[in-house]
């Protein structure tokens, strides 16, 4: 029994050391689920822009090229723009920036900082509202993404979805909740209410997409 207890303590120690890394991984999983949807949206947007340019600019630019005596395709460049890799690239950049911002929101906070309502109320600003919302969505999406990954590798059975769901829920409780608490407890009283507006432009869409497409809670509502 003593050996078992010692091994458990050892495993717990390793887990504790790796906890921050695992929290970062959970955020990465959630952000990617949102970014994948973002990729679809950005691709649709770029295709729309290309269509618009075709409808409104191609004719006039071809005529302008004729007047200038240059090859028409020096002015009409949009038809050959490869939109799919661009949208995936933009989604990737957004994902990496969101990863950094959301991980940074709890990574730089010392553990054990007390989370209280009065402390949070003093810290209210745009960033203080959006960051907890987005981070919560991303962590839920990350937990669900983990459950999906687990279900994909588990042998098909009635138990598999439950086991995978339990794993996701456990990751949310054991890793997501502490990360979220640390991020909120880290909020400092702002100089202006607009503090955190810049990062908000990145993490708000990620948070919304994470809640909308990565959180199965909507499926449980009537």
């Amino acid at each position, binding site marked *: 029994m003593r050996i078992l207890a010692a*091994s*458990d303590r*050892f*495993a*717990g*120690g*390793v*887990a504790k050391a*790796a*906890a921050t*890394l*695992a929290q970062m*991984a*959970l955020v*990465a*999983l959630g952000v*990617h689920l949102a*970014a*994948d949807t973002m*990729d*679809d949206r950005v691709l649709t947007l770029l*295709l729309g822009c*290309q*269509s618009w340019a075709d409808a409104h600019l*191609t004719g006039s630019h*071809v*005529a302008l*090229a004729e007047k200038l*005596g*240059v*090859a*028409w395709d020096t002015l*009409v460049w949009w*038809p050959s723009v490869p*939109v*799919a*890799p661009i*949208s*995936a*690239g933009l*989604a*990737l950049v957004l994902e*990496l920036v969101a990863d950094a911002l959301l991980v940074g929101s709890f990574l730089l906070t010392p553990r054990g900082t007390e989370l209280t309502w009065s402390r949070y109320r003093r810290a209210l600003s745009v960033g203080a509202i959006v960051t907890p919302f987005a981070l919560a969505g991303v962590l839920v999406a*990350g937990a669900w*993404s*983990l459950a*999906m*990954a687990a279900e*994909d590798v588990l042998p*098909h059975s009635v138990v598999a*979805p439950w086991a995978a769901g339990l794993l996701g829920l*456990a*990751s949310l409780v*054991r*890793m997501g909740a502490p990360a979220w608490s640390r991020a909120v407890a880290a909020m400092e009283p702002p100089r202006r209410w607009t503090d955190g507006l810049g990062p908000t432009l990145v993490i708000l869409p990620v948070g919304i997409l994470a809640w*909308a497409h*990565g*959180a*199965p809670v909507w*499926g449980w509502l009537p």
Partner: protein
Amino acid sequence: MKGWADLLLCTAVLCAAWVRTPVGAIARNGVAWVRDTPTEDVLASFRTAVPERLERSIATAAAAPELATPDPLLDRGGWTPALRTAVGAHLGTDAVATLIALDAHDPGAALELHAIGAEARGRAIRRARSAGVSDAERLSSHARYLSADEARRAEEEVTQVLSLATALDLAWPVDPEARVSSAFGYRTHPTLGTRKLHEGVDIAVPIGTSVHAAGAGRVARAREDRVNGKHVIIDHGHRVRSAYCHGDALHVAKGGRVGRGEHVMDSGNTGRSSGPHLHFGLRIGGRPVDPGPFREIAARAVVTAAPAGQSSTPHSGAETRAPTPAAPPRGATQGAANVPPAVPIAVPTGAPETPAPSAVSTPDTPRIEVSPVAGAPAAPDPAG
């Protein structure tokens, strides 16, 4: 055992992120760089870049003696001759019967089941429903809940086969006997003197000739501009669009639905054109493809389906292909079963040097290059 449980949890999260996220891909590339092994594409974590295998499938379908024989039972379930031929060309002849056995009433579902299996599809649909996604049965609705690899496989088979089937079902917009005065493909531009891609075919027809919709669809564009003249673009669904340019009069409006064979335009000589002709373009998944092989297929379908002594109509297979009374045994795939090896056709393979001159293009619409009918004076040089 709490320590072990926490360690298991940490390991599971780290493994999932390692395998499933771009951050994991970057980390894997770092390891590969250190170990001097091949790196991978980080963007492959996203689902948008699905490789197209259509060129070979179009060639295979074009080389087939005819479309699969119509079967009322299968047709009602959506397994049209065009779809069965497309499956045979894209996935191999053996796949046709297998797919019909998987789902005789929903070809899209059968294709996805064939690509990734029932378990993965069921999981994705369940997950999509959990997330509150409406119409979760559709691949586009639940694809993001598949793993990246499964999603790519499903998109590649389902989307590309349905695209090919839609294109195979198109008819020729005018009399198939009308002469093609300028074919699809790279050619030396008559005035620029450089190699350019002609992204459609020019068909020599007199002004006023009725131009018919190659297939049913929605009118994505019906207007006039100085390049294409009066032109119509029809979206047939499944990423297939056809374009008809240099018309004399338009008979449809943007946003309207048209039936297959419907009179959409009178041909003419408007826009940057110096001789009466119809420019007919076809795009699949935003890429221009040669309509030529599809004319061959449509013409063969007319020959096999039309009653003896009846000649083909200008818009070919529209009326003559579908109603064939003789129903072969269920699951018959004669057309696809005799698919010979692929033959090369005029689909451009190299990267285009530049877009075509006097082009109208959108990601999904055909880019239209104007060329005069044979013997007519050259079109004005857009480069001056």
